[in-house]
């Protein structure tokens, strides 16, 4: 369960998250929608532990553990996974080397033994097959020369291997054509379990046709301004965000 309580965040003196509060239950898929510049990506970065932001007050609890103040790698080992809007290219680091290093680093943090190479290979192959990731992609440097769709699939592959208790998808649909979107969405859907929650951040309703949320939240000016079921996404697709922008301006 992810609980964000009264989170206030600024960057360079400019307030971005404004008393932001949200709870996502175990197994729940919550979507956050909202116009550009409302702090959606900031929210994901702050939860994951990026240091460019000033957290003024508030709490972020994952399964009851306070995440604020922990290093990003410790948060990951506690079960948090952020699928990046733009996964980074890491030249010179072979994808397989990276995956194994990440998996073993998390296991070490949790006091577990390193994964054996045969086990690791088997798990990568299974997850890769599901996501249509070709073996030659795994031999290349991480994300280098990958298409937008390949990068997103690689992020979902990482999520499948790392088995987090909570996943944040930050605008996973950006830069994806419809076929790639389906593959990525199917990858995410296959990871849905009664225990694993997701926070899906998106501008558009389209992604939510494929990853069907339990709840939809509308975010504007750094906080949640409306909450509803999946039908809210359809309504937004019709009416746009103008009403919420006007409400804020008023």
């Amino acid at each position: 369960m992810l609980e964000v309580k009264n989170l206030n965040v600024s960057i360079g003196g400019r307030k971005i998250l404004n008393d932001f509060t949200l709870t996502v239950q175990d197994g729940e898929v919550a979507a956050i929608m909202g116009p550009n510049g409302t702090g959606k990506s900031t929210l994901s970065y702050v939860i994951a532990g990026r240091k460019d932001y000033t957290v003024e007050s508030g709490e972020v609890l994952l399964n009851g553990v306070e995440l604020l103040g922990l290093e990003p790698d410790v948060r990951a080992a506690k079960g948090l996974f952020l699928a990046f809007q733009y996964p980074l290219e890491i030249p010179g680091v072979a994808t397989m080397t990276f995956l194994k290093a990440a998996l073993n680093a998390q296991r070490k943090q949790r006091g577990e033994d390193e994964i054996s190479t045969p086990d690791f290979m088997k798990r990568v192959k299974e997850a890769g097959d599901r996501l249509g990731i070709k073996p030659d992609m795994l031999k290349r440097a991480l994300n280098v020369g990958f298409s937008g769709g390949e990068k997103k699939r690689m992020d979902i592959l990482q999520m499948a291997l790392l088995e987090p208790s909570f996943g944040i998808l930050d605008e996973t649909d950006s830069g994806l054509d419809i076929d790639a979107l389906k593959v990525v969405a199917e990858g995410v859907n296959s990871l849905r379990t009664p225990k694993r929650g997701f926070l899906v951040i998106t501008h558009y309703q389209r992604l939510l046709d494929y990853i069907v949320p339990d709840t939809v939240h509308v975010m504007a000016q750094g906080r949640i301004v409306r909450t509803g079921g999946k039908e809210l996404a359809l309504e937004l697709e019709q009416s746009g965000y103008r009403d919420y922008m006007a409400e804020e301006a008023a």
Partner: protein
Amino acid sequence: MTAQIIPTRTAAETALAEAFGAAKATLPGCAEVAKLREDAFGAFFEAGLPHRRVEAWHYTDLRALMRDALPVAPTPTAAAIETLRAELGKSAAVGPRLVLLDGVFVPEVSDSLPAGVTVRSLAAVLTEGRPDLVALLAAQNHQIVDPIVSLNAALMQDGVVLEVAPGTSVAEPIQLVYATASSVPLARFFRSLVVVGAGASVMIAETCHGEGGRTGQTFGCLVFSVGDEARVGHTAEVTDTVAGSVRLDSFIAEIGAKAKFDSFALITGGGLVRRQIFLRFAGEEAEGTLSGVSLLRGREHADTTLFVEHAAPGCIGRETFRYILDEEATGVFQGKIRVAPVAQKTDGRMLSKALLLADTVAMNNKPELEIFADDVACGHGATCGGLNPDQLFYIQARGLPQADAEALLLEAFAAELVDEIGHDGLIDGFRADVAAWLGSRAKA
């Protein structure tokens, strides 16, 4: 009245003149070689040790950095050779080894070479005085004006002359192993020549032996003559110098038509290191790649200076160098590319990248393009910066602690060039060197 300017000689210059005076009667070579030595020493002594007002040495002020000249290392003793033999027996080799002890070729601890490859000592070749080899050794086509190349020519004690017959294909790298007999600081002057016949293919790996580190002053010179359509790889492992030592390597290569030449060097040593590379595209449509990685910390100083001359049309030149600088280290990269009027359709690209890990490091980049042909594509770039915070965050968000994320990115930065060497055994060796450097950084 005009003031009379009398050039002052430093203690080091005076000592070098004395060393040359004492040694010249016994240095190997026929009469022509003796004259060559005299001329070379004259050129050196007139210029003196290079200093900051010499453009090519602006960032490596040798006159200030090398205050004294050490005694020249004596010929290795039988006991030293036996010790070396025992040590070499314990270490693994990626290919046949030609061993130089204090710059002197030691055939009795060297391996036999495959068919089509012959080796002789430099001393034997200089004594015999075959004009074609002497001309190649003197790098006459290059018209190099450099006091350190001259000093090496004057005092060269020994080295190897390796000839690869035309059409020969050598499977495993031939290693030039540099070993030192004692830890007493001494000066060594050696020069080697590799002549690769037309259509031959070979890889030459310069490696260092011994864990004690090479103290003293090393003046090395390696000359390549690459025949038409030959394929040549070269690597240099400069990882054995220690604080207070001076290592000045001159690397000279001439490439024939349609030949391919790739050279990589790793510098992790202490003290002062300068590699100056003189590459000449002599025949058309040749391809040359020069690359290198320097990993520096403490007050180490490493200088890579290139003089690339396109003297024939349609050649492709790629120069890629990377530096990781920590603590108070200084990196220097200078790349001078000259495209002669005949060298139309030259395609040249030069790039230097430096990662600066502390505010107290210094990186000096100086690209120079002199283009006298009008139909060429030449470019250069230089970057200096820190690790990318976005990449660091991405890796940390996947579970790697910050120090491990940094190490991964640093290793990758160096390994990207290492991985292009084209021989798995050599790649493993260089990767191990990089990992060892990063490992010692993590502990510090």
